[in-house]
């Protein structure tokens, strides 16, 4: 976070079409301006590439959470059924975890999925700053309907580039 006394003025340009938006993002970046944020009503395919965003690593996080879930399940079944209180239930082997493992497959699978799905979604909410009652992140309510907004720090000559790129409305704040 920049601790300046005066906030840097930002320019917000609204577009009314996703194809225009993509080409505008490319033009703006080609002209040497840095885009700080783009708000869209739906996932516009190719926008992340046009903006130069890195790929998300959330799928890798989900995999790690799944491994964690599997580990928890193995520990849980081993401790309860083999170590802490072994019982002969229905003649099924309980001497060691390996022999009893086939009966644990459903539990191992379910807990893997449970951990992967829930922890991934929690991660997703946290890194996006989403929580119940949070203030709307989009500065203009029209960007959840049919407008697309590009937000970038004010700079010389920027407005002309934006106008030329097809912006229907430009505001400085």
């Amino acid at each position, binding site marked *: 976070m920049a601790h300046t006394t005066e906030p840097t003025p930002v320019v917000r340009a609204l577009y009314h079409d996703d194809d225009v938006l993509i080409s505008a993002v490319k033009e703006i970046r080609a002209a040497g301006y840095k885009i700080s944020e783009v708000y869209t009503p739906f996932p516009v395919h190719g926008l992340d590439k046009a903006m130069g965003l890195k790929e998300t690593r959330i799928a890798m996080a989900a995999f790690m959470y799944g491994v964690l879930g599997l580990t928890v399940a193995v520990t849980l079944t081993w401790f309860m059924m083999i170590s802490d209180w072994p019982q002969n239930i229905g003649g099924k082997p309980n001497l060691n975890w390996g022999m009893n493992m086939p009966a644990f497959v459903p539990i191992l699978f379910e807990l893997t999925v449970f951990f992967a799905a829930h922890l991934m979604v929690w991660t*997703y909410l946290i890194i996006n700053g989403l929580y119940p009652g949070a203030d709307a992140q989009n500065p203009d309510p029209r960007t959840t309907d049919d407008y697309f907004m590009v937000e970038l720090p004010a700079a010389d000559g920027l407005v002309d580039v934006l106008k030329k790129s097809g912006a229907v409305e430009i505001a400085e704040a």
Partner: protein
Amino acid sequence: MHYESPVRQPLILGDKSYNQITEDVVRPIENAAPRSWWVVFSIALVMFLWGVGSLAYTVGTGIGVWGLNKTVGWAWDITNFVWWVGIGHAGTLISAVLLLFRQRWRMAINRSAEAMTIFSVIQAGLFPVFHMGRVWMAYWVLPIPNQFGSLWVNFNSPLLWDVFAISTYLTVSVVFWYVGLIPDFAMVRDRAVNPVQKHIYKVLSFGWGGKAKAWQRFEEVSLVLAGLATPLVLSVHTIVSMDFATSVIPGWHTTIFPPYFVAGAIFSGFAMVQTLLLIVRKVFKMEDYITIQHIEMMNIIIMVTGSIVGVAYITELFIAWYSGVEYEQYAFLNRATGPYWWAYWSMMTCNVFSPQFMWFKKLRTNLVFTFVISIVVNIGMWFERFVIIVTSLHRDYLPSSWSMFSPSFVDVGIFVGTIGFFFVLFLLYARTFPVIAQAELKTILKTSGEAQKKHHSDHGAHH
């Protein structure tokens, strides 16, 4: 860039813009409920309250008030449990499996189908919980230290697998649904005029603003959740079927159960989606989004899964004969010709015979016919579970303990109550939630919108 083969039918009819989609999706939320909504809601509420009364009576007196006896220890409760879980499966199939297969027609129906999943799994969960008798000890199924319950839970038991499968399925379905709902709630929030409404949707939308990075993560999360939900949904009915298949009761102890149950689940679930969506599209005027083509696609799935179920029934009969096991042979002979023959043949007619009409394009694109078949299929699937459970139990190895099952008014009350509860939830959902995943649908407007496709074919694909 937005080209799609003209052979493909448009998925969004009429000349829609992004804004028009928004308007159409929020209409049921922003306008007052039609009178028909109140009528249906009141009926559902009365049914629900009847169910609450029946459950209270069950808990207060004990499950002896049900029609169970010492021979038939599982009947309507487990029948209803399996039936409701099965219905839930179509929602996940539509949102997860069709996402992995990149079927765009899912986008208009996945929101409601997932809602149906969640609401029906809630109904399903009630039955095993109340069948415990002393529901206040329901926490004994959780893996908690011995001081809190009797002993550690038994991870060898399919009934415990069920606890894990159903709770994972319910909670993962809820988060999958909610991740998709967040951007749509934000859309409703940004339009709301009434301050109370605006505040509610502000809370629900978690502050979503549609940032580019958030959308990128959104798509990745949806894909991974779909990848997790696909094996999950198959595991759930597999595990439900193991409640039966791992026992030594003739008629239950068969290896065909997991795939057979999963096919049946998808079959009944799609039928329920049809029932609900045919009403939703009519009442909320969504005909441009939930088109005849969508209905037809679902009818084809009903036909295919219905035929799979038919093959499974016949395989079961063949294997019973081929196994040479007398008890197994008698169980199936008794199903088809014994005192419950009417249940068996209702099942056969509804599940195997009725979906075959869908081979005819005229019939599978006929809305009234589809509606009737969708209800027939769900009746048939209820009978399937009843036949499997009750006919296998009522005449087992010991003829001196053979008996019959007849439901008590409490059994009926609880079942009717869950139907009421399901519709109460669904009707409330339909009035307050965006019933179509509008953000997702907007992504296919340019490729699959009727006007947009026509524009392409008139002007050629120049880009």
